């Protein structure tokens, strides 16, 4: 998976043009529920609900979703393992109640990860920046994040091309060569990134840049029906947990 995979998926997503508020309510709302509610049955219900929004609502391709979820699950496997065992004076043994604890942790972490992936796969970064601006994050910091985002793709392309060129000349073929080749990429990449920054400065000055970076962002009105639906599902999850 490359840097652009999720970004591309988000900007081509079925729900790309839905209001940021709706998607934030789903992604962040369920994320909070996953953390606040007891993992069973809370996190399990959250996971089911958010997956329904992901696949039935936003129609995220399953293959892409699976390829994305592999990485956090790797972390979960090793981290969860640690809860199964305990260290005593005699060495390592199975922890009492460890299985249950590990299962609960896995449930919660997975539900939360599904929420994050919902956001990542449906919400283009442009909308998030606009949202951050509305949340009164200092303009300078949003601008810094925006420019960083823009540069990430340019620099990642350069890094990928450099690495391909080195592989073509047999760099990276042993541990020592890997170190030398990667260091050469990094050492050549930083000056290029800074040169790019200087050119960008000239390019933006030509467009009348005075130090503030204002742009018109389009804002989609929130659909009340959707919000009501999401809130209803969230309330249902909450009630189910309280009653259970």
């Amino acid at each position, binding site marked *: 998976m490359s840097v652009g995979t999720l970004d591309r998926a988000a900007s081509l997503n079925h729900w790309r043009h839905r209001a940021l508020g709706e998607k934030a309510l789903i992604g962040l709302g369920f994320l909070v529920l996953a953390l606040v509610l007891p993992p069973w049955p809370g996190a399990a219900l959250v996971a089911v609900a958010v997956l329904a929004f992901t696949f039935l609502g936003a129609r995220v391709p399953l293959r892409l979703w699976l390829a994305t979820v592999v990485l956090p699950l790797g972390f979960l496997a090793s981290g969860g393992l640690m809860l199964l065992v305990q260290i005593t004076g005699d060495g390592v043994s199975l922890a009492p109640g460890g299985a249950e604890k590990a299962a609960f942790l896995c449930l919660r972490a997975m539900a939360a990860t599904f929420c994050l992936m919902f956001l990542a796969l449906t919400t283009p970064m442009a909308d998030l920046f606009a949202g951050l601006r509305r949340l009164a994050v200092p303009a300078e910091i949003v601008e810094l994040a925006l420019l960083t985002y823009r540069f990430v793709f340019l620099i990642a392309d350069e890094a990928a091309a450099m690495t391909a060129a080195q592989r073509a000349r047999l760099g990276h073929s042993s541990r020592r060569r890997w170190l030398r080749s990667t260091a050469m990429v990094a050492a050549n990449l930083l000056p290029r990134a800074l040169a790019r920054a200087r050119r960008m400065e000239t390019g933006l000055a030509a467009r*009348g840049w005075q130090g503030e970076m204002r742009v018109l962002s389009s804002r989609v009105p929130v659909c009340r029906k959707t919000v009501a639906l999401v809130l209803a599902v969230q309330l249902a999850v909450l009630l189910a947990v309280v009653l259970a």
Partner: protein
Amino acid sequence: MTAILSATDLHYAYPGEVPALRQLSLGVPTGRKLAILGPNGAGKSTLLLHLNGSLRPDRGAVLLAGKPGDYSRRGLLQWRSRVALVLQDPDDQIFAATVAEDVSFGPLNQGLTDTAARARVQAALAALGIADLADRPPHMLSGGQKKRVAIAGAVAMEPEVLLLDEPTAGLDREGADQLIAVLRQLGQRGMTLVFSTHDIDLALALADDVALFQDGTVLAQGRAETLLCDPALLASAGLRPPVLVELWLAAQARGLCPASGQMPRTPEALMEQLAPAPPALRVAQ
């Protein structure tokens, strides 16, 4: 023919390097399309950066509508509202997360209201034929599309002069042809265009006037029809005439084209001039 922009006796050296511009004088005729033609590394980009006030000459002056360029903060803002610059690499000029957001940057910097800026954005995207890309993130565009986004960002400021550095660099034939068509349209609407290029075929396809550039100075400036048909002059700038013109001159010399014809700017124009010989006179098969 009035000059909306002109440079007299410009001299400029980047700190610690050999001079990039030397005693350069140039006039930009109002409402026409001027090609600054010369090899890479000759200082063409440096000249463009002088024409919008991004660089300040060590000696000499840039005149905007006859008045010396004003390098104060306010002066520069006005200057750049009237003279827009599009860099060679569109990635050096596109920063926002979507195309429409990016194009709105210039108009908002000019102090327009949101409504007025939005109208400018729509007009500019329409003029460049990219209205359908408005919501796309820039890194998902092709090279030709990015180029047009960068130009839309300049056009949205409604400048009098548009400076373009190597506008067709990196584009394939189709992308270049589309861009040339768009630039011609902008010219027809009265915008003055100045573009730098090392590609004499681009000058042939687009320019009304040509300035021959070499080693930081302008060797000659004149109408494209005159300059591009002058092999001796072009050779002094290390250039050859466009292939079309070479063949046209050769055909004229052989009597296969009328000597009074106009310089052909497309293969079709040359073919029209190549009159078919009557069957009896054809060369032996």
